[in-house]
């Protein structure tokens, strides 16, 4: 008997009598709250910076002040940032290793934990949010949901090949519990709420 059959047989033999799957729809009930304020409070608490803006031009203005956008490599999948960024169209994603600043759209964000959801409907190259030194997310204000339950309701049965929640810059506290931002991924995260 192969291992697959062996394991499945042993599971069948040893699993207890069927227990009911609980209904979790009650977890969707939440108190009314200011989602933008809550999202901002939480994501700033985990090391990101939040800016509320009206136009993309304002974002460009901000980024020009913080980065030498003329000198460093800036990549974005959004044509609105053509003035300071280039799209990535290479075949080998290792060529992204020297990107200083990455500007990316998001599907929606979650107030309770500051996470933003991105999947390959927005961009095919999975390493984009992980490889730059600094990351910028564009989040639409009205697309902030209260909790993860609402988040998965939005995702639904969507067929993506890869998707991820990202909450803040990459970080570690492995050395004596001292928090250090910028473990392996981005050293900073700026979220622009539009």
């Amino acid at each position: 008997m192969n291992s697959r059959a062996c394991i499945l047989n042993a599971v069948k033999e040893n699993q207890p009598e069927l227990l009911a799957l609980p209904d979790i729809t009650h977890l969707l009930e939440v108190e009314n709250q200011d989602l933008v304020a809550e999202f901002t409070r939480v994501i700033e608490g985990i090391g990101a910076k939040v800016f509320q803006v009206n136009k993309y031009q304002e974002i460009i203005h901000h980024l020009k002040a913080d980065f030498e956008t003329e000198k460093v490599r800036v990549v974005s999948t959004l044509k609105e940032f053509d003035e300071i960024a280039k799209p990535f169209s290479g075949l080998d994603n290792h060529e992204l290793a020297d990107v200083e600043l990455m500007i990316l759209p998001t599907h929606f964000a979650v107030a309770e934990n500051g996470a933003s959801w991105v999947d390959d409907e927005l961009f095919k190259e999975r390493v984009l949010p992980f490889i730059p030194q600094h990351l910028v997310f564009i989040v639409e204000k009205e697309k902030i949901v209260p909790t993860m339950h609402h988040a998965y309701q939005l995702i639904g049965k969507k067929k993506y090949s890869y998707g991820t929640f990202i909450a803040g810059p990459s970080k570690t506290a492995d050395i004596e519990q001292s928090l250090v931002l910028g473990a392996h991924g981005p050293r900073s995260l700026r979220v622009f709420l539009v």
Partner: protein
Amino acid sequence: MKTIDHAANSKVFNQDEDRVDWHDETLWFIRQKRDKASKQIPQWEALREAASQIKNHTLSNLHNYLEEFELNAKANGIQIHWAKDAQEHNEIVYDLLAKQGISKMVKSKSMLTEECHLNHYLEDRGIEVIDSDLGERIVQLAKEPPSHIVLPCIHKKKEEIGALFHEHLGTPEGNADPQVLTEAARQHLRDVFLTRRAALTGVNFAVAETGEIVVCTNEGNADLGVHLADIHIACMGIEKIIPKRGHLSVFLRLLARSATGQPVTTYSSHFAKPRKGKELHIVLVDNGRTKQLGRPDFRNSLKCIRCSACFNTCPVYRRSGGHSYHSVIAGPIGSILSPNLDMAKHADLPFASTLCGSCSNVCPVKIDIHEQLYKWRQVLVKEGYVDAKKALSMQLMAKTLASPTLYHLAGKAARTTLKYAPFIAQNRFNPWYHQREMPAVPKSSFGEWYQKNRTK
């Protein structure tokens, strides 16, 4: 060979009292962060209950969910492998690498590969493995196992890490600044991420409904590794399955809050299909799990999501350190999982507890950890895995307590002895009296007092 038991190991750890205090306080600080995070969610208890019930249900229908997961994952182009034990798991991983002529691999945190001793297996066959989680990399450089499942080098002081990095990564001698050390690891591992063709990760959750897996990290090391490699190997125990994608909401809300007090891990990545032109392999491992599933008293230990809340709250873990458990998974949960794998080797672990129950109270999936610790003690005594002296003294005690004559006699003897020759009990060989005052010896037992006074 008899392994050194938890009590003896703890004694070694406790020789450095300052370090024990520091270890204790650091972990308690994390426990407090967990408390704070959990109290910010009004639905916390409802979430725990939901998580517990989802896991109970899953275990009761695991056979079907495993088949459903396999079917959906395969339809997505993922290759599925089944391993009945650690040996087969290691062989599968090795074959996948050997087939492509790969001799260097980067690995993010996976307790399962620790359980299977994969690194040693691969290194013996000429394959270099580099752990990319910072804490794991530190213990790997120190040639030690992790002492904690979430914080692998929590037992290490920054000065020791500074010395390790000076030796291996060329950081300035005497520099123990976490910022500087983390930066050095970042530079070193970035080069690793960019040059490895194979990346291995663990799995936090596998969704039967969609055939996708979810991997959670704070550092981004799992994603950087796999997105830059040609082949992604994900290893998981068969108990990591959950029924539906929507259930991830429950577990992702609980996991990081229970672990470190964060609202969520920085990255929660969902892998449903391989990258275009690349490979994604999932190895489903039993290694004793089906046996545990067949033990009614202990099966719900398989609900564990590896958050480590029970470690951080445990008064014994905090004061004895992870290495004292001489087991891949330490702490209270390790003490109920390990005897399943090898009773003789881990017979001491269920006794490394005060049975205070704090572990069960913080467990996000409501495993009755302290009750299982107590039940394992009974199994281990019955099976004859307990120290003969302890077994004999317990039998004597049981006989004495069962017979009124013997009980009265023993009480009298004890009172007389303690009155006239207290040194027999109170000496340096009896650890019970270290740092403790003796209670005053009563003149008589309650029975004797009652006999004398009831007629008055």
